[in-house]
């Protein structure tokens, strides 16, 4: 096994321009083995785009992406399974790899879904589907795991359990994890590094650093960030609702 702290993916000043609009720009980050990086930010701030840049899904990007692993598993934000395609959970588990029966069952066991193995994928509820997506990713034993809002549709207790699980995966598989979340205070204790996005990197650092950062508080509103810290500060710019930045007048 390779040592901890080995870099898996490196983004340097990455950005994507589509239809003359920057989805996200100037993102630099590094994902290392055994570490969890969390991306936070409001809707449309470029979290999913950043994840897709990391996965190499955009052909034309600004900046650089360097990948040092091919063992990648991806849990996308949503998947639409076409009615025309009959597919069971078991078929889906083997979608991009050839797993043994025991490996499939073990992974489904971990996410609490062994009873769904022979169910039709389309008959699952949102929360069940999310767990199956996680199980599929775990079963691949990846070096890099990219999770785009993995707790959608999962109830609150399930959500905490799922974050516990993510931490456990990171420890046992020693893989690097890029996690997208809308909700910092739940993931905070499990995360090594937080990047707060709003079309660009607003701030980044340890969860505490970010929580105390004025820009983070500005972005999420003081009430939400108060849970983490009480920190008053004045700003030189305002983030408008459409994502543009305006200089504050004094």
């Amino acid at each position, binding site marked *: 096994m390779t040592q901890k702290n080995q870099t898996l993916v490196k983004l340097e000043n990455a950005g994507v321009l589509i239809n003359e609009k920057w989805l996200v720009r100037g993102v630099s980050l590094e994902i290392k083995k055994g570490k969890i990086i969390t991306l936070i930010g409001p809707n449309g701030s470029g979290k999913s785009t950043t994840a897709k840049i990391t*996965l190499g*899904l955009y052909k034309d990007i600004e900046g650089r992406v360097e990948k040092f692993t091919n063992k990648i598993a991806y849990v*996308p934000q949503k998947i639409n399974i*076409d009615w025309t*395609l*009959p597919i069971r959970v078991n078929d889906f588990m083997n979608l991009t790899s050839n797993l043994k029966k025991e490996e499939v069952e073990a992974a489904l066991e971990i996410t609490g879904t062994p009873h769904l193995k022979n169910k039709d994928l389309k008959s699952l509820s949102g929360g069940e589907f999310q767990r199956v997506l996680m199980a599929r990713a775990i079963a691949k034993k990846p070096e890099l795991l990219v999770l785009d809002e993995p707790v959608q549709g999962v109830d609150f207790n399930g959500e905490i359990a799922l974050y516990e699980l993510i931490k456990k995966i990171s420890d046992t598989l020693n893989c690097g994890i890029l996690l997208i979340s809308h909700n910092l205070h739940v993931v905070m204790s499990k995360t090594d590094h937080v990047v707060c996005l709003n079309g660009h990197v607003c701030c980044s650092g340890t969860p505490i650093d970010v929580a105390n950062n004025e820009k983070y508080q500005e972005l999420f509103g003081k009430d939400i960030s108060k849970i983490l810290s009480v920190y008053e500060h004045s700003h030189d710019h305002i983030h408008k609702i459409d994502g543009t930045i305006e200089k504050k007048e004094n």
Partner: protein
Amino acid sequence: MLDDFFVRALLVGIGMALVTGPLGCFVVWRRLSFFGDTLAHSALLGVTLSYTTEINMAISVFVISSIVALILLKLQKKTNLPADALLGLLAHSSLAIGLVVIGLLATIRFDLMGLLFGDILAVNVNDIAVVWIGGAIILIVLKIIWKPLFASTVNYELAEAEGMNPEKYNAIFTILLAAIIAISIKMVGLLLITGMLIIPAAMARNLSDNPNQMVIFSIIGGLLSVIIGLFASLEINTPSGPSIITSGLILFILSLTKIKKKSQLNN
């Protein structure tokens, strides 16, 4: 035994059904039925090319259909038009060019009906060889690309993120589709070939709950359509290509009764 026209027709039909079964499943899953039609229409141009240059018909149709397919992939990237508009554009313009070329070649006698609806009863030993060897190559390639192609059918981004290279395999699949149209155009004609791809697969969808099962049912459905259709055309003297497609439709209607029971059970 190969002297008998009916045995030859059966052999060709069976060879075709073995290939259209699995390919048809992908056509249905990927919602490519109109794409199949476009390729089939463009095949007319390939047929006229073969008449003027005396190249083997299967080869000229394959070349023209592949070119049209690749043009489509390019246009999809370059323009903002939706896929169905582009398909219509290519289908009708290549059909029109084909007919214009036929008009220019007034000296050559053309069996247009034969082209549109095929004549499986007129196949020779050569055609059997083309269908079985060509079909075997298509199935082997499909078997090799099955995993990445299936993954990209379920979800393109997931497949790409996990290193399955979907763009490449989609292109290969498109070529395979052009190939099956090329080798079977003489048997069922360019208006009915997509029916051979879609109808057995649609029937199979009603009966299956997983992808492998659907492929097997689709092959069985295709084989039954060919056998029933050919015997019917012999017994009641109906045109053979359309009889095969009609048999497929009857099997599809029968399969609807099965799906009804299934959903009642589930509820």
